[in-house]
């Protein structure tokens, strides 16, 4: 399957789940609103150029904003994450890894420990910025910290499930 087709299918499935299933479930607590749509940006291939990465993040974020009716909120958070992604990949991987072809970040291509660090750090960046922007308009500091922790943990769990569900087959090193 071509890489473009694969990504288009993946984007539609994950956005559908995020918008119509996960966020329709009555929340356990006001702090817990799991988001996992940004794994789409984390899973884009290594070789994608940084400009395309930013544009993709803006597109996905804006799509989310249309459904959640929060103009610019998710787009801003996704952009920050996409901007930081190449730096983190360079830190975690030996140089030549970035010259791979259509490989995507996964436990198999990166190794499980670097991959976990990659996911956790970028999720934290995304969530802190998202909740920070929400907090600027609304709520107290306790709200910010509480929501960041609770939502972060639940989101990471969701990403683990999504990762297992998609079970992406990449060539091992």
């Amino acid at each position: 399957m071509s890489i473009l087709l694969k990504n288009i299918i993946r984007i539609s499935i994950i956005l559908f789940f995020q918008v119509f299933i996960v966020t329709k479930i009555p929340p356990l607590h006001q702090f817990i609103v799991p988001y996992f749509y940004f794994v789409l940006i984390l899973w884009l291939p290594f070789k994608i150029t940084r400009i395309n990465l930013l544009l993709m993040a803006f597109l996905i974020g804006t799509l989310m904003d249309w459904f959640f009716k929060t103009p610019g909120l998710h787009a801003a958070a996704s952009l920050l994450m996409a901007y930081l992604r190449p730096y983190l990949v360079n830190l975690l991987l030996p140089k030549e890894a970035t010259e791979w072809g259509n490989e995507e970040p996964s436990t198999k291509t990166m190794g499980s420990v670097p991959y976990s660090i990659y996911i956790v750090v970028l999720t934290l960046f995304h969530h802190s910025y998202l909740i920070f922007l929400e907090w600027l308009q609304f709520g107290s500091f306790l709200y910010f910290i509480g929501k960041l922790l609770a939502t972060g943990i639940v989101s990471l769990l969701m990403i683990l499930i999504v990762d297992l569900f998609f079970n992406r087959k990449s060539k091992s090193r």
Partner: protein
Amino acid sequence: MRNVFLFIRRYAVFILFLILQGISLYSLFTSNRFHNTYYGMISGEIAGDINRRVNNVEEYFTLRKENQRLREQNAFLLSQIPSGQVLADTAVKSVTDTAYVDSVKQNLQYQYLSAKIISNSVFLQQNYLTLHRGTDQGVVLNMAVMGTDGIIGTVVGVSKNMSLVMSLLHKQSKVIAVLKKGSGLGEITWDGKDPRYLVLRKIPKTVVAKIGDEVVSSPYSDKFPPGSSIGRIEEVRQDSETNTYILKVRTAVDFSNVQHAFIVKNLLGDEMEEIKNKQIKE
């Protein structure tokens, strides 16, 4: 000049990042209920169509509750029909005036337009509903939206077949409310925490507020029919700084579970607006 191009080329990614980030933050911080008209139009037509298809399936899950609510409302409405009521005083001759019901629409102040809710949220900080009714069906900005149990919100964006409603669970939502028993004007807002509770402020302490008292829309409202239910008081707190209460109100409408709504058209609304403006000019 060459250096400028070199600079741009070198920092192209960063510059693009800043531009896109700027666009997002600008649209985030300048958006409020007034600007939302434009945003409501784009997302209303694109996201609205997908939302509608999904909602067709979703509706089956709440069918039983919805049925129950409609049956209760039916029973209530049936009891309102004049022919079902017995006159208390038989000495007075009563003529059922058909004109009163509505033939020239002179006595009718509020018209109700039934609409299906096709998307809804309760857990965000700014909650909106989308209704499957728009300008083609006569919806305009600032109309009130009610559920079968009480007030839902205000129309803030309209497109051809969809309208965007700011629900009471929105940080910018403000509705003037009174206590059904003690009167006293107050303001209903939402603190963004629990979608089951609203906050009622500015009710003076001279009014007696008790747990369980009903909170209704103000008789001076130009949108909501006076006396429409908003909720019941769940907790009474005294504000130590001012002479007012801070009341926790449980919503009458179960926001996580609404499927149908009525858009309320105030037939005298334009006239009220006109006379207000006239007064201000003079």
